[in-house]
């Protein structure tokens, strides 16, 4: 017993991730936390997407299930779980069964290396970014399998489109990532790193997020990645593989119930995953904004209060809307529910003001809010853009993004070489 407690305690105070420190217990705890957090994020994202999209489109979105539709995702989840699970009789059963699993596994496994903070990751691999890119690309395999196994025409076309899509954006995406990795080698030792935590620490050491590095090279690389990542996650305007108005639902036309919800889950967690890559590589990961402009202890203190203030702000919105709720007795439960939700948010906000908590949590907060910015962009794209045709996407990938990526890579490498040999020999 003592040995177990000792084993558990041995990690506390370590400055490594549990995986790197080799502590299985804490690694498991972190996996659970990431998984739970991700599920909550997907649920929240579901509600937010509907609400934000609705408000962009002059409508209200879900309003009935819970106050302002807050319980709608849960109602939907229950509905999906209770639905009949249909497998077409002509389908290839095993592959049909495997496809959603592969997609979900690919989407969730990548979160092992996502650095929410200097120690807040399940593990720190020295090939972290390669692992992320590799595993997240696996989801295309799942999509192709789903399309093929359905033994139906629309899914097949969806799968074909997906594979055509992949070859056209992945190269440009890779080039953009390489140019960011090149920038990590501009430190005193002159060695780069592929570790996700190392990349953020490199930005911290150089005092510059890579999006601003060698302006505008970093920005262009970021832009290439930002376009490619939308294509990677099959979201509008690149949602060709599931274009509902063309291919009914594309690769998941034949899926229903829980299997379908796995695709849904995977899509949203893949969105979070690729946004995490972008945040890590170009937006300084868990680092707070304006580290150079607003430096000093007083600003550190001020920024450590931001998480708490944010949650209090959300709580205030909830309370404001509670006050605006109709006074009719039928709305009593909803009013209480919304006030309770606001109270929970407010409580979280207050807890975040405790210095000991805020010091540990603010890394996660900054990382998540940067990712949330990307999530908002995703919704915004969906509300604004028509869908690309797949030959146009390929044209863009090969004729625009790829040359741009090559150019950025060569220029970055050239400037980096000059900086290391001539300016700072």
């Amino acid at each position, binding site marked *: 017993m003592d040995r177990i407690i000792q084993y558990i305690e041995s990690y506390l105070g370590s400055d490594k991730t549990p995986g790197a420190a080799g502590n299985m217990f804490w690694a498991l705890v972190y996996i659970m936390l990431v998984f739970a957090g991700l599920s909550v994020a997907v649920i929240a994202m579901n509600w937010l997407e509907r609400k934000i999209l609705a408000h962009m*489109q002059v409508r209200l979105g879900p309003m009935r299930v819970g106050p302002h539709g807050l319980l709608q995702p849960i109602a939907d989840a229950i509905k999906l779980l209770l639905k009949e699970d249909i497998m077409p009789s002509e389908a290839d059963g095993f592959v049909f069964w495997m496809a959603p699993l592969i997609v979900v596994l690919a989407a969730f496994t990548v979160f092992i290396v996502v650095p929410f903070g200097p120690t807040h990751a399940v593990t720190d691999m020295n090939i972290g970014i390669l692992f992320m890119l590799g595993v997240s690309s696996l989801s295309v395999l799942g999509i192709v399998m789903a399309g093929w196994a359905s033994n139906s025409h629309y899914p097949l*076309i969806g799968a074909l489109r997906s594979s055509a899509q992949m070859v056209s954006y992945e190269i440009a995406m890779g080039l953009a990532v390489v140019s960011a990795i090149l920038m990590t080698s501009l430190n005193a030792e002159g060695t780069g790193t592929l570790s996700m935590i190392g990349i953020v620490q490199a930005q911290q050491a150089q005092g510059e997020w890579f999006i601003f590095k060698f302006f505008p090279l970093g920005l262009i690389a970021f832009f290439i990645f930002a376009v490619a990542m939308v294509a990677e996650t099959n979201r509008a305007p690149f949602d060709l593989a599931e274009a509902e*108005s063309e291919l009914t639902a594309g690769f998941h036309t034949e899926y229903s119930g829980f299997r379908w919800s796995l695709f849904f889950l995977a899509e949203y967690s893949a969105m979070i995953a690729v946004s995490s890559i972008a945040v890590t590589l170009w937006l300084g990961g868990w680092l707070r904004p304006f580290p150079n402009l607003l430096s000093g202890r007083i600003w550190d203190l001020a920024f450590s209060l931001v998480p708490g203030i944010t949650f209090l702000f959300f709580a205030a919105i909830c309370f404001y809307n509670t006050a605006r709720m109709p006074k009719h007795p039928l709305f009593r439960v909803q009013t209480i529910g919304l006030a309770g939700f606001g109270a929970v948010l407010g409580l979280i906000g207050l807890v975040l003001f405790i210095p000991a908590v805020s010091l540990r949590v603010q890394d996660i907060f900054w990382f998540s809010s940067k990712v949330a910015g990307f999530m908002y962009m995703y919704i915004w794209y969906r509300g604004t853009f*028509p869908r690309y045709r797949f030959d146009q996407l390929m044209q863009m990938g090969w004729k625009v993004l790829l040359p741009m990526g090559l150019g950025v890579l060569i220029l970055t490498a050239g400037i980096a070489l000059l900086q290391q040999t001539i300016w700072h020999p």
Partner: protein
Amino acid sequence: MTDPNTTLSHLDLETPEKPFLDANELVINMGPQHPATHGVLRVILRLDGEKVLGLECVIGYLHRGVEKIGEHRTYTMFNPYVDRMDYVAAVSNGLGYCETVEKLLNVEAPPRAQHVRVILTELNRIASHQLWLGTHALDIGAITPLFYTFRDREEILKIYEKYCGARLTTHAFRIGGLQYETYTGFEKEVKNFLDFFRPKIDEYEELLTTNRIWVERTKNVGIISAEDCIAFGVTGPVLRASGVKWDLRKAQPYANYKNFDFEIPIGQNGDTYDRYLVRMAEMRQSVRIIQQAVEALPEGPIMAKVPKVIKPPAGEVYHSIEAPKGELGYFIVSDGSTQPYRLRVRPPSFVNLQALDVMCRGQLVADVIAVIGTLDIVLGEVDR
């Protein structure tokens, strides 16, 4: 197909296009249950990968035998049935039918009735084009314009509801004029709508006209030449976007369109983008017509002298109007009884739909959706 005048060189159904290498052709049923076929249109697509080698439309899923029903109803009783054909432009259908029977009876609606008819029909043109724009954009993947157009279409429907109590299948006109006098504040509300609607067209255009993806998806997609249009009998905005300045409101003025000053917008390339621009410009022209009509709304009776029991003299008549989707014609053969001997409708959607194959050959599946959207078909009218 043997007549050389009607045979088109590229519509060669006998010798199929060779697929690439020895790839298998894929035959796909698009519809009748499909989100983007605007109802129950079934399109059999022959594909090489995603390239369309040819397609065939299967229609009739919404057939209700409207023309046959017409033979068993009196002229007055049949009037509401025409609203159910092109249900997004019910007022235009009613206008066409009423004017045809009036032509048969040799009566003319009084000026005030004609003015109100023009106002309501042009409002209907705007409503129909709004619905087209919303669904067309939705098919191409832009979901937001749909909600904008429906928000603004609501204002038109409110005017209808106040005028005749119905929003969609209005039955607004009667043979010989109108049944209802305009309600109090009708003119003001129409004017308010026009002021409200002018900036809204700019809003739609802001979302789409210069949108790079929209332009890429619609330019050079579904091109149809003016000759093909004429050969197929395609009319309406589709014909005008191919560069033919043909609008029945100008060519064979009916109602009192000759009193109003408006232009016929035309395109050059006959592609989806031009059809989009033409329809957007038509909405602006409709606003112009309504403005003139509502400002010059004369006083006077709203109903011509029409016998209680309509018994037109034996004979036949064809009359057509410019419906939002093209030439809407009615051909009525009267045997002198209270019911038509034969009633034939020439619906624009049905004729325009023929051109789908020509417009889609060699394009991709995604373009088929865009072309179905740009043809602006209503299956209620295609199948009748």
